[in-house]
């Protein structure tokens, strides 16, 4: 089993989106820099929001100064995948702000594209939603209709 190699216990991000909780198992072997950087930033509170044009995924942001090199990258986002994506300030047409975000795919219809550049997005795949996260998926889907909701992200080792 690859996950958790180098650690005695598996590490998880616990995502509490407006009371709906899920956990994402972090893969420190496949994406060590991404996992370590994000692990060190937890706990974290932010707003969870729906993707604009990438389909059935949502995201929360860290400060845009959070930079992680490309690592274990993919454009193929599947249901349950969790990726890190960064846009530099002024990189994208008419979307000048920098963004460092964690994106999770709550359903299977995902085509990652960046607002402004409208090109295919490459994300650092570093975790996967684990266990029963059906309520979390339902809450995630609601963000499209209801707007942003608070999210709390914390650590779990077991």
């Amino acid at each position, binding site marked *: 089993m690859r996950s958790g190699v180098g650690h005695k216990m598996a590490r998880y991000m616990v995502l509490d989106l407006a009371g709906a909780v899920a956990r994402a198992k972090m893969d420190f072997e496949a994406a060590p820099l991404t996992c370590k950087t994000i692990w060190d930033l937890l706990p974290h509170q932010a707003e969870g*929001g*729906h993707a604009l*044009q990438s389909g*059935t995924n949502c995201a929360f942001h860290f400060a845009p100064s959070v930079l992680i090199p490309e690592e274990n990258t993919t454009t193929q986002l599947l249901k349950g995948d969790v990726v890190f994506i960064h846009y530099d300030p002024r990189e994208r047409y*008419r979307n000048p702000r920098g963004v460092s975000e964690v994106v999770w795919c709550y359903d299977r*219809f995902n085509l990652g594209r960046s607002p*402004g550049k*409208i090109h295919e997005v490459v994300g650092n795949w570093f975790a996967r939603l684990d266990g029963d996260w059906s309520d979390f998926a339902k809450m995630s889907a609601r963000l*499209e209709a*209801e707007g942003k909701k608070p999210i709390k992200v914390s650590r779990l080792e077991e």
Partner: protein
Amino acid sequence: MARFLVFKMEGAEARARLFDDLAPETCKLVWAQLPASGPCGHVLLAGTACSVEIDPRAVAPAENQTGLIHPGDVMFTHYPERWRLGFPEAESRIAWAYDRFCQPRVPGRMSPEFPNVFAEFVGDASAFFAACSATFYGGRKPVRIEAFDG
């Protein structure tokens, strides 16, 4: 006389002129559905566009279609029943691009989409477009679309 759709949401109002010459069947179909109202929010995959559902039995032939959408374009799309993976229900929808970052795709099929462009916003629609943009953060809001013969 030109015919218009009048969009009303969150106290903002804007008009779109129908393309009766370029998309006559679509205009006729949509006109018959007015006034239309419902929750207005972002489409799932297309970017800076909002939409409202109408009667899913409303079907128009392919007319004046394009995949290159400009701000202010008003679109009609219809998905037949059981056509799309994961979205088995039929759906008819009026959508409009409130900014330039709009590339329609079909939920489920994930393919590019070529909607019938049957109207365009005219005059100052900035307040209405701002209300559309705000639904991304604030969630869906009621919209009403009325007919107007100008």
